């Protein structure tokens, strides 16, 4: 029997100074990453310094919004259940924590290609999530 993904209450992100551009872009349907001008590595979650070389020369770039499911779990008990938590490896390299939505949760697989979609938190902040673009791949 399929487990359709359901809308659940999404908590507001507890932003710190410096997080605003990420969520402002999300409100416009764009997923942002930070990249380093010194070592050319892209990281996530976004920081004020590059976690690989500690340069402060980090800038925002727009991700293409596509990636592959690295791992996931369908949580079937507790608040908001059922829902799918996942790590998605973006085409730009970093792997990010997220939810997989708009899908029969029982069909989610590691290796599936996914694309970003946005959901509103309780306070109206856009939160990037992902949905499969193709059927499960082996």
């Amino acid at each position, binding site marked *: 029997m399929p487990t359709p993904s359901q809308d659940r209450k999404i908590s507001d*992100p507890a932003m710190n100074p410096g997080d605003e551009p990420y969520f402002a872009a999300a409100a416009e349907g764009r997923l942002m990453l930070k990249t380093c001008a010194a070592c050319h590595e892209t990281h996530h979650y976004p920081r004020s310094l590059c976690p690989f070389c500690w340069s402060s020369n980090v800038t925002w770039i727009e991700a293409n919004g596509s990636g592959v499911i690295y791992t996931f779990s369908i*949580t079937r008990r*507790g608040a908001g259940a059922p829902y799918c938590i996942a790590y998605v490896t973006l085409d730009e390299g970093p792997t990010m924590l997220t939810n997989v939505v708009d899908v029969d949760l029982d069909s989610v697989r590691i290796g599936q290609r996914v694309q970003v979609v946005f959901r509103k938190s309780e306070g109206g902040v856009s939160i990037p999530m992902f949905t499969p673009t193709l059927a499960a791949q082996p």
Partner: protein
Amino acid sequence: MTIRGKAYIVGAYEHPLRKAPDHSVAQLHADVARGAIEDAGLSRDDIDAYFCAGDAPGTNVWSMANYLNLNRLKHIDSTDMGGCSYLIHIAHAAEAIAAGKCNVALITLAGRPNSEGISGTQVRVRGVNLPDSPYEMPYNPVTLNLYAMCAMRHMHDYGTTNEQLAWVKVAASHHAQHNRHAMLRDLVTVEQVLASPMISDPLHRLDSCVVSDGGGAVIVARPEIARALKRPRVKLIGRGESTKHQMGGRIDLSYTGAAWSGPRAFEEAGVKPSDIQYASIYDSFTITVLLQLEDLGFCKKGEGGSFVADGNLISGVGKLPINTDGGGLCNNHPANRGGITKIIEAVRQLRGEAQPQVQVPNCALALATGIGGAIGHRHGAATLIMERE
């Protein structure tokens, strides 16, 4: 500076209660502190170092030092690395003793999540000003799914099965049946684990540790003091600690921080995994055990599934007896932190004081290892190696 042979575990005590609605958290800490100092044959005034972590009221040493009226403290340490804090505390106590800072260290853990109705599918607020929080909390990460994602990936990479994971719980139940204080004493089968409710794929209810009240305490002392006491002597010979996280986005959930803490402890102790006669392996979930066994070198990476199967972790049956008190999976996981009980059962084994049905014959070399936090995003790891003198 090595701690090898510089300090001994001279006292250990596990609270007998698993549900303590009438006890305060401070009272539980006090109960175990007194139990451990009595076990050692020392007195309150011998204590000149105190260690506690985030489970203590106020999260640091102040309140409990006050409650216990510890007036001679020359060394204090509130290092909080979740459930493995107490293994780190023992290592730090040994370092402080070796450096001449103190003589007798008390380490306590206690809490009452069972009475307070806490579960592993609740979102835990871990603090304020967290840089990771805005990028994680909207997705509802909870203890269960942060571990479940590691199990899911291990199954994908190595073909590990639910049946193999279930064997970790089956082994725990075989041990817990002999522990009159264990929260769950009934034998369970692989089939029963698989038939228990799925909480967060692929982890079932019976892949998860108990939620219990209670606690435990340990006393660490310098060699001259240990030799003057009547209890069998448990010498610390190796320790390692580490932390592992998301690596700036280069996330790899195939291993834990034990891959770093373990080799450091083995190198200091001058022993290898195949020398270990008994191991306490942190068992918040079945997958936690499997990953650490691989990371510590008890088997190769990816072979944890076949290593834990068919009773290989059952004392008297398999090659590596672990968690002979029933572990967190069946006995006790007080304050949602399994670190102190891991040490206490290793001490029982080395003293020859484990339950007779699970006692490892002539146990002279033991390991205890722990994880604190969640291996799915950020955690600490700590490993101790001990020998009977």
